[in-house]
């Protein structure tokens, strides 16, 4: 190794580096800026629209404050969140193992692959009335609808992820005489994690939509009921409150899943290359 450095060239190098590594604009500043532009434009142009046909941020915030003050919002949120979390969690707990064995074993893939592919494209909205007939109008039907919407993207992503695991990594397991169950758990599962997490992220959006669909059909409780009631009363601003809450919730969950991903698969973020 060369330890002697010409001081003049060293100085030149550091100033050069300073120019190259000028601190980039933080991502959150860009996101906030985008939000200000969008909400500002909505606030300005939204005011010109008849309040039955549309609304704008400050009116929605005002309606939200009213809903929160009366406690209606919290009751509705709780009614929606309980089946949401249960259905979503079930989709992960059941979808991931099914995806793993489907991707790993040719015979399982041949036996159930078609149902997973078909299930993903299933027009669930059309089937909700049937589910209501089977499960009633309560908690169970909401869980079922959310589960059915969320499980397939998780399952398909896991399945695809398994088929993308490099053959040589599996051969490492084989050459050390690892049993199939160990290869599945200790090689295929960690190698598939990025795909699984992507499926879990995709499922957030579908689960939120499923929750509202379920509440539209049962229409007794939850944020979906708030949407229906206020829409029927031509109270458009109030109708937007649960919609905005759901979208914000989806963003929050997405961040949460991202954090979990960095926690369970820290090597992934270190390997992945992404441009500024």
């Amino acid at each position, binding site marked *: 190794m060369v330890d002697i450095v010409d001081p003049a060239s060293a100085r030149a190098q550091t100033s050069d580096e300073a120019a190259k590594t000028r601190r980039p604009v933080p991502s959150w500043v860009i996101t906030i800026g985008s939000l200000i532009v969008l909400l500002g434009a909505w606030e300005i142009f939204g005011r010109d629209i008849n309040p039955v046909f549309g609304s704008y941020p400050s009116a929605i915030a005002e309606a939200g404050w009213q809903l929160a003050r009366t406690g209606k919002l919290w009751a509705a949120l709780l009614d929606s969140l309980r089946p949401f979390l249960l259905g979503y969690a079930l989709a992960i707990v059941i979808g991931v193992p099914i995806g793993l064995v489907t991707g790993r074993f040719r015979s399982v893939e041949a036996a159930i692959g078609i149902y997973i592919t078909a299930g993903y494209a299933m027009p669930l909205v059309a089937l909700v009335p049937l589910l209501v007939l089977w499960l009633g109008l309560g908690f169970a039907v909401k869980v079922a609808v959310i589960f059915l919407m969320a499980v397939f993207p998780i399952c398909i992503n896991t399945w695809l992820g398994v088929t993308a695991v490099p053959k040589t*990594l599996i051969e490492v397991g084989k*050459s050390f*005489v690892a049993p199939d169950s160990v290869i599945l758990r*200790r090689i295929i599962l960690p190698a598939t994690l990025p795909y699984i997490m992507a499926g879990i992220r995709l499922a957030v959006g579908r689960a939120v939509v499923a929750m509202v669909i379920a509440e539209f059909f049962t229409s007794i409780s939850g944020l979906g009921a708030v949407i229906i009631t206020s829409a029927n009363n031509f109270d458009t601003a109030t109708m937007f409150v649960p919609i905005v809450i759901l979208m914000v919730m989806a963003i929050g969950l997405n961040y949460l899943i991202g954090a979990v991903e960095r926690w369970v698969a820290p090597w992934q973020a*270190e390997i992945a290359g992404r441009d500024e």
Partner: protein
Amino acid sequence: MGEVTLHDISKRFTLRIDGAVHAVQALNRVSFTVNDGEIVALIGPSGCGKTTALRIAMGLEIASGGKVTVDGREVSGCGHDRGMVFQFAELLPWLTALQNVMFGLEMKGMRGAELRATATRYLELVGLADSLNRRPHQLSGGMKQRVGIARALAIDPKVLLMDEPFGALDAQTRETMQAELLELHARTKKTILFVTHDLDEAVLIADRIVVMKHGIVQEIMTVPLKRPRPDLGKVRGTPEFADTRYRVWKALHEPTGTVH
């Protein structure tokens, strides 16, 4: 003891190209022995079947005919009596260097304090005492392959099977690794079967060289260089090196089937 023999190994498979089925004979009655403590290099042009022969010896592929024996006992499938070093190391990216070595040991049934101590010892043996907790992406190519070698050696196999282990490394790192491998061999006396397409490497490292072409063994040569070979640079300057290198080169360039 640690002796591995390929007896009349053949490998056929079919390829479908534009609807037409082609039968490919990847290996045709390949036979050779790697004696206890010996290093044998398997050399030949790409597609000659050398890697297939090694993978069959490991049990990662099934031969269409013939058998593989380790110390006279026929083997089927993979076993702890053989340790594999892969071409690109193939470390599990989510595990640290130490955990990668521990993985192989765990599969052999080792548990507890012994597990960690053994893995550490073998990483020290390959000169990675300071990098136990690094993940593969924090290691250079040469370091990765050192972990790969430690992982295979740690299970104390009778035979070490290496598939072009230094093929992906730059020239300088490769020379260092070749010297280190010879040093490891001097210390552990492992039986090694080594696939390479590098003439110099084969002559520098091996006791005997098996030259393969088009799925058959063209010639088996003895390398007249004494062990130990502590200075490979000096070895390169000897007439024996130049002579052996020329003989291997000639064998590789002769038409198939003419064995002298």
